[in-house]
Structure formats: structure tokens, C-alpha cells
């Protein structure tokens, strides 16, 4: 009997060659005879009412498409339904779509779009946090009693800025009429979100809308809910014009008008007993939702749930708000609310320790979560937690303690920072069983080739490879015998969106169950189809109204250590080294996981010190890749990543979530390193050279 290779052993990514060679047909590569082009006419003001629209003389074959052409509902179906397909009367942010100009010649379309004259009655825009559109709250234990018996209290406020996903490929679709309905091919994360939104706007029968994923050039959450907006607009245009239409954003258009990570303000107040143990925390997380709420409420919820991160605190009072402002709507981005809160709590823990005169490392370790502890929402950490071993390993390979001591000498301008953190895998609470209800299919044809039928999208994170590897391994057949094509809603069931670090754990978990069934029932030369439906583990209990219970079925864990040097002349930060340890259950392909580790940390660290985006009166100031600074290979430090096995019983081969975990700890780790280097408390990210100068000056 041959010994099977460990599933983690890396294989070549199945789509590397088509992507490196340029053969992969991205949305912009698609061309159809007679195809038209669509361009968006947008609001130039942050808030106002449309008084009058004057169109230029439209040549033959050129069209405008606006709210009056929408067959059913002028709202994009998302979690919260307030985002119009086209602005009809009121505009609420600079760049809000008002209409499309569609026609055969791009230059003419552009000139026509520029020639549309719109009169507005301007209103005072709101940019401050005063109009709360979503309020959430939960508590644990008795926080008031904890504060009453507190020996002391410590209070801080933390702030984070925008982050732009900066995917290489901008948003885009090509759509065409087909069989009396509409087919949309696009750069998307969630084929069924798009399909359901279009059905809802168009009032069409289920079989009239078909959505196909094209190869995706990066997404990072930016193609989770936003493509539903452009898809609905395009579907309206298709219905009116009945010709193929290409609808692709330009880079600046994309950066100025699509969703980003929510800027945030977090208030933290801790009650400490006489021995400096944290006995209670009160917290409020405020997110800037932008003009429409969309899925901001869910982002808020994930952020709030991370309030105690990987620490156990018995008494909590946690509230959160999404503030509506006249700015571009914010939305999904790798981490989904957690990066804001994990930055706040990691800094807060350090700041408490410093204020009470304790060594922050010892202080943190004393509060570290253990198996069996209650989560922030009074659920239970059921599975083994190996975080303490991970921290030990991180300390050892980074020489953390010696460096932390040496860098206390302020003249070195060097610092080392450590974050540790968790990330809940899959949808929050009972979302998987109540909302998503994922379904997967494995279809075997009469030649015994096995086809994976799921709606999960490979946006670079690897399921085209790892799903095939997983299924082939369980069926004990060569990987070439298993196919996984780009999802097409005509053929694949709704296995849920490609979000929330759920793809391998949840969708992969269902595929593993399907593969096991197929193997048992395997009849050579016969067509067979196996369908599996998501079932929530029975022990999971969640009350959405009180936000109490098990928020996630499983957690991935991580430790980041980052070392920096700050220039005394320019205040620039050089990130010298990073050491990272991750527990993601089991890697289905080690190299792919390490790729996530490298990229996630580059993005997470950059969120903490490099990536600056802000607006002036609702207009974003950094709107292209020249001004919005993301790290280059020269900026990214030397990284040493380790993956620890800690298999999760319900994940395939024990796999949990990966994608977001690798981002969420980067910002606090680099911020803590900078904090040590300059000897000042960092309470706001990104910690730019400009803000470092201010901190040095003013403390």
C-alpha cells in the first residue's frame, strides 16, 4: 500500500500558467460582436437634490439609462436595503451614479457623458459622526458592578482611517441578452449575491438571470457587495437596449466611487481590580458607513465581537454605531470590522499595562484566553487553543524579549511590537444556517471525471487548486480527474458568497462530505450526483437580538511580531522584520497558505503605517495608485511564517479560515513597534511620518 502524501504538501497552483502567460480571460479581455460600452454619469456634489437634467443630442445608437428605466425596485438588494441602483431625486455622495450613457464608440460615449448637464439644489453635507443609522449592543456579565468595585479605570480612544482594497483589476462586467433574460460575466466574489440583486431589481423569474465569474484579478472584499450595484445598472441597460454591453470602471473611477474599509473611532474603558486584573470593559465602536448602510451593520457586528480579541474579560458592555455621512459608501474588506477593533484592543491592553506600571507582555499573558473560557458574547471556546505555545515560539524566533529590552533605549529609534489575535471563521452567528444555507454538488460523469459544482470564487486565494486537491485526495483519484470551472449560476448551486474566511472550512467541508459519500457510492462508468447542504453544529447557540451565544463555530489564531526602525531625520518607518505564527487548523496547501500569510501581512502592516486615504468635503484626495500608497516589494519586510497544526474536527482535514486572519494583526503589531521606537502612545493609524512627528512633538 502506498503512503499518501500529507494534504498540506504543496502542488503547483492550477491557474498559475494561464495567469502568468496572460491567457486568462479577464472581463476586460471579453469582446462580443456589436458590443456597446457604458459610462456612468455621476454626482459632482456631496449632497443635494436633482432639479433638472439636460441631455445632449443623442446620436443614433446611443442611449441613456437611468432610474426611470428600472422595471421593479430602485434598490440594490443587500443585507440592508438603502442603496439605490441610480440616484433618482437625491444625491448623497460625490460620484453617486445618476445614469449610464451607452453606445458603440467609446470616445463618443465619453463625450456625451461629459455633456450631460445636471442642475442640483445643494444641501449641507454631513461628514461628522452624528447620524447613526445602525445601533448594536451586547453585554456579558455585569459591567456596572465591575466598574463599581474597580480599584481604578483606564480610558482611551482609538482611530483608524480608510483602506482601499487596491485590487489590480478594477470592477467590471460584460453583459448580454440571452434566452429572453440577461447574462452577466464579471469580476466578482459572490455570483449569487449578484444574481439575487439583479432578480430583485428587475423583477425577473429566477431562470432569466445568469451570472458567470470571470477570472478575478484580486478582490479583498471589494467585490463582495459592490458588484451588485453595477450589475443591477447593467441589467437595466440590457433590458432597455438588448445588446451586449461592456461596463468596466477606470482605476480612478473605481477608487473614488467604490466601497472601502470603514474609518472608525473606538472608545475603550477598562475597570481594574487591586491586582490590576481587567474585570470589565465598556466599549463603543463607531464606523463611518458613508452615504448608504449596505452591509455596514454586519461589519460593525464583527468588529464589536472582536472587542476582547484573544483575552478573557468577564464583564462587558459593547455598543456600536454605523454613522451615515455624505461620502462614498464603505463596505466589505478582508477582516470585515475586526482590523479596527483588534487595533484598538491590542493598543489598549498595552496602554493599560503602561499606565499601571506593569510589563505589557506579562499583563497580556495573564489575560490570555484559554480553552473553555467564555467568548465576548458568552459562548464557549470549545476547541483546543494553542495560542500560548504560538506566543512562546514567536518570542523565541524573534528574540522578542532581548530586543524589547534593548529598544527601551530611546536613542535607538527602534521598536518591536507583538500582536496576538483570533478570527472567527464563517458567517457570524447563525448566518450560515439561517441566511446562506450553502449547498454543494459533486457530479461524476460516465467517464468517471468528477466536477465540482460550487459558487466559490478563486480571486487569487486558491480554491481552484485546493478544492480539486481536496476532492481528488478524498476520492483517491488523480487531480486531473477532478474539474472545477469558473462558477456559472446556470450550473452551480448556491454554496454561498466567497467571504468571511469560510471557503475552505464551510464550502470545502461540504465538498469533503460529498466526496466521502461519492467514494462510498462510487459506481464506475455511471453518472452520479451528490448534493450536500450546510448543517450547523448542534452545540452552536446564537441569539441575534441579544448578540449572545456562539458567534462562530471555530476560530483561527495568530501571532505577529514586527520590528521597525524610525528615521530621526524624516520620521519614516522602515519595517525590518516580521515573524508570524498561525493556527488555521490544517493547511490544505502550504504554499497557498504562506502566500496568504505574506500578502495578508503586507496589507495589514500597511494599514497600520503606510496607506493613507482621506477626504476633503466628501472628495477623496488619494484617487489613484500614484497618490494612494500601497507597499512595494522594497517596503515589505523579511517575513518568517510558521503554520501550526491544530485540526478543527468539522473542517476538511481539520482546516479552518485563513484569508482574513493574516491581515488583522498587522496594524497593531507595527503600531506597537513604532510606539516603542518613538516612546509615545500610538492611538491612531496609519502612523504616518507626519503623525509620528506630531507625536514626538506633543506626546
Amino acid at each position: 500500500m502506498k503512503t499518501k502524501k500529507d494534504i498540506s504538501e504543496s502542488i503547483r497552483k492550477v491557474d498559475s500558467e494561464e495567469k502568468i502567460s496572460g491567457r486568462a480571460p479577464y472581463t476586460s479581455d471579453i469582446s462580443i460582436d456589436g458590443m456597446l460600452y457604458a459610462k456612468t454619469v455621476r454626482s459632482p456634489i456631496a449632497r443635494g437634490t436633482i432639479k433638472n437634467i439636460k441631455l445632449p443630442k443623442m446620436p443614433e445608437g446611443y442611449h441613456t439609462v437611468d432610474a426611470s428605466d428600472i422595471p421593479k425596485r430602485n434598490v440594490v438588494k443587500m443585507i440592508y436595503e438603502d442603496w439605490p441602483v441610480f440616484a433618482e431625486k437625491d444625491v448623497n455622495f460625490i460620484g453617486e451614479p445618476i445614469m449610464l450613457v451607452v453606445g458603440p464608440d467609446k470616445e463618443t460615449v465619453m463625450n456625451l457623458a461629459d455633456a450631460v448637464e445636471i442642475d442640483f439644489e445643494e444641501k449641507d453635507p454631513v461628514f461628522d459622526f452624528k447620524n447613526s443609522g445602525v445601533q448594536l449592543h451586547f453585554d456579558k456579565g455585569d459591567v456596572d458592578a465591575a466598574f463599581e468595585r474597580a480599584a481604578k479605570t483606564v480610558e482611551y480612544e482609538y482611530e483608524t482611517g480608510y483602506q482601499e482594497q487596491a485590487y489590480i483589476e478594477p470592477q467590471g462586467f460584460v453583459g448580454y441578452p440571452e434566452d429572453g433574460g440577461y447574462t452577466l460575466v464579471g469580476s466578482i466574489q459572490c455570483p449569487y449575491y449578484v444574481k439575487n440583486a439583479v432578480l430583485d431589481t428587475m423583477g425577473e423569474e429566477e431562470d432569466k438571470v445568469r451570472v458567470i465569474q470571470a477570472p478575478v484579478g484580486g478582490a479583498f472584499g471589494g467585490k463582495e457587495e459592490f458588484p451588485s450595484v453595477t450589475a443591477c445598472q447593467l441589467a437595466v441597460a440590457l433590458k432597455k437596449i438588448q445588446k451586449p454591453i461592456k461596463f468596466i470602471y477606470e482605476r480612478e473611477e473605481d477608487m473614488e466611487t467604490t466601497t472601502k474599509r470603514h474609518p472608525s473611532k473606538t472608545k475603550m474603558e477598562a475597570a481594574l481590580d487591586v491586582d490590576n486584573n481587567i474585570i470589565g470593559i465598556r466599549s463603543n465602536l463607531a464606523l463611518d458607513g458613508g452615504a448608504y448602510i449596505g452591509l455596514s451593520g454586519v461589519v460593525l457586528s464583527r468588529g464589536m465581537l472582536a472587542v476582547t480579541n484573544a483575552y478573557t474579560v468577564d464583564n462587558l458592555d459593547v455598543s456600536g454605531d454605523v454613522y451615515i455621512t455624505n461620502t462614498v459608501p464603505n463596505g466589505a474588506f478582508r477582516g470585515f470590522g475586526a482590523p479596527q477593533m483588534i487595533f484598538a484592543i491590542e493598543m489598549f491592553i498595552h496602554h493599560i499595562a503602561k499606565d499601571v506600571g506593569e510589563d505589557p507582555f506579562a499583563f497580556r499573558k495573564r489575560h490570555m484566553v484559554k480553552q473553555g473560557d467564555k467568548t465576548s458574547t458568552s459562548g464557549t471556546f470549545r476547541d483546543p487553543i494553542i495560542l500560548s505555545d504560538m506566543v512562546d515560539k514567536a518570542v523565541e524566533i524573534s528574540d522578542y524579549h532581548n530586543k524589547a529590552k534593548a529598544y527601551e533605549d530611546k536613542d535607538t529609534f527602534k521598536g518591536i511590537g507583538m500582536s496576538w489575535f483570533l478570527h472567527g471563521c464563517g458567517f457570524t452567528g447563525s448566518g450560515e444556517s439561517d441566511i446562506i444555507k450553502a449547498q454543494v454538488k459533486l457530479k461524476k460523469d460516465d467517464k468517471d471525471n468528477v466536477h465540482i459544482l460550487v459558487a466559490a470564487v478563486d480571486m487569487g486565494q486558491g480554491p481552484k487548486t485546493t478544492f480539486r486537491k481536496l476532492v481528488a485526495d478524498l476520492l483517491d483519484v488523480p487531480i486531473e480527474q477532478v474539474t472545477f470551472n469558473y462558477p456559472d449560476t446556470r450550473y452551480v448551486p448556491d454554496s454561498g458568497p466567497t467571504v468571511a474566511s469560510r471557503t475552505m472550512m464551510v464550502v470545502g467541508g461540504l465538498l469533503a462530505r460529498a466526496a466521502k459519500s461519492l467514494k462510498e457510492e462510487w459506481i464506475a462508468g455511471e453518472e452520479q450526483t451528490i448534493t450536500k447542504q450546510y448543517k450547523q453544529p448542534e452545540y452552536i447557540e446564537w441569539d441575534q437580538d441579544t448578540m449572545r451565544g456562539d458567534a462562530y463555530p471555530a476560530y483561527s489564531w495568530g501571532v505577529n511580531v514586527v520590528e521597525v526602525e524610525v528615521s530621526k531625520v524624516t520620521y519614516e518607518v522602515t519595517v525590518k522584520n516580521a515573524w508570524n505564527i498561525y493556527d488555521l487548523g490544517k493547511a490544505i496547501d502550504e504554499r497557498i497558505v504562506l502566500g496568504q500569510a505574506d500578502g495578508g501581512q503586507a496589507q495589514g502592516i500597511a494599514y497600520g503605517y503606510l496607506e493613507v486615504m482621506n477626504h476633503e468635503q466628501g472628495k477623496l484626495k488619494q484617487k489613484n495608485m500614484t497618490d494612494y500608497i500601497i507597499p512595494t516589494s522594497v517596503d515589505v519586510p523579511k517575513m518568517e511564517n510558521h503554520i501550526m497544526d491544530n485540526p478543527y474536527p468539522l473542517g476538511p482535514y481539520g482546516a479552518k479560515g485563513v484569508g482574513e486572519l493574516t491581515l488583522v494583526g498587522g496594524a497593531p503589531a507595527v503600531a506597537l513597534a513604532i510606539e516603542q521606537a518613538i516612546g509615545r502612545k500610538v492611538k491612531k493609524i496609519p502612523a504616518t511620518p507626519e503623525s509620528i512627528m506630531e507625536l514626538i512633538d506633543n506626546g
Partner: protein
Amino acid sequence: MVKHVIPKTYEEALDHLSEGTFKVLAGGTDLMVKNRSWSETPARFKQDILYIHNLEELRYIEDRGDYLAIGALTDYETLLRHEAVPQVLKDCMLEIAGPGIRKVGTLAGNIGNASPAADGVLTLYLLDAKLVIEQKGSAREALIDDVIVGPGKTTLSNEEIIKEIRLPKTRFTKTRFLKVGGRKADAISKVAFAGAVTIEDGVVKDLRMALGAINVTVVRLRDVEKRHIGETISAVQDNIVSIKNAYVPHIKPIDDQRSNRVYRKRVAFNMIEDFITTMHTQD
């Protein structure tokens, strides 16, 4: 309609310039970006364009004894590989954009574009670069300081073209190019500094400092530099406060999407001080 002209020879290019009003496009790394349009549509140029990229006559580096002559179309990558190009200019060019842009971008284009944040221009100020500016029938030579007058503004007339850059040969005991961009590569300067010094037997024989992105043009104060020529190292260093004071009226940065004036100002003075205090040591 905007006219697009591609001359076959340099002489022909001068003829066109004498007859029409053109924007001269060398590598196109600024003009194509400034006039960008919707993908798959032509750039939105607002005036006639003269494309000189194929004029091989302007692609040369020549050692002419007391100076180095650089043809206007010589790209950064070629300059980076040439042994006679001063190290401080190489240090600077290595931090300009990325390899792709450096393969087509030129110093002459950097001058023509006249951005206050242009790193190449900054270093040419430091090196006392002279420009050979030609039009049909005549040529003139001018110090770079006298050609660039403001953001995007030069003294070049419509008939004129930058033909050549001349770098006087000078040996320094220490040079420095220090740029603060938003990141470590492929970034536009928030503030930048170029410095050079020649010290013999503890006496300062030459001292130069140029600062970029802190005023409408590069700031180089030759009179301030001259004041200290012939002084000992410590005499110059003891005067750091007065040296910095001399720059005060000239360091007038702005707030923009890349940084703010307070930071730019502070870092500019830090850079001056750091160069002066370390001018006798190797970095």
C-alpha cells in the same frame, strides 16, 4: 483637432517647432499620464504634439573633458549604467519611479515638466547642470536655475527644445540624495534633498545643498553656500543655526494629498542639519 507629428530627424523637429506650437513628447511618462483618457481611447491632448522619441541623434552620453554631455533622449536606465555619470545622480535616479518608467523617462523631460517635486531636476541643480537649448538657426546655454521658473513653467519658448544637458566635472568628498516619498520605491517626493561637499585638510572647499518639493522650484542658495567656503568643518557646523535661518524665507511648502506643510518644513530643516553635521563622515 490636435495634430500629432513624428519628425524623422532632429533638424526636421526644429523646423516644425519654428512653424507651429507644439508640446514636445520624449518618453511620454508625464504627458501621457497628464492627458490620460478612458482606456482604449486616445490621450486627451489639448495641443499639438511633437514626438521626438525616435530621434537617435539625441541619445548619447559624451565625455568632453571638463564636462559630461547628455543627449536629451538618454533615458534613466542608460544613465544608471554609464560609468561617467556622477554617483549622486545615480543615487537619485534609482529612486525615480520604477524600472519601466526609467526605461523611457528622460532628464530633459523631467526638466520640461518642471515639477517642484522632480528628483532629477533637484540633483541637476546640485550639479550646476547647464542646458543646451536650441531652435532653428540658434542655440543658447543656460544654467538650470535660470530655465525653470515655476511649477510646469520654464523659460523655453515655443520654438525651443532642450537638446543637451551638460554636467561640469566635479569631485566631491561626500554626496547625499535623500528623498521622502510615501514609500521606499515608486513614489513622488514629499520632500527631497541633495547635498555635496568637498573637504580638504579639514577645510570646506565646496558646499552645495538643494531642496525639492518645498517651494515652487528647487531651492539652492548659492550665496549661503559660498559664505562657508574656506571655513573649517567645525566653523561651518557651529553655524548651523544661522545656515538654517538663511533657508527660512525659502522653505514654503504646501499641504496636498501627499503630505503637509508642517512636516515638509520640519524635515527640510532636519535634512540640512543632518547633512551639515555629518558632512565630514561617510554614511
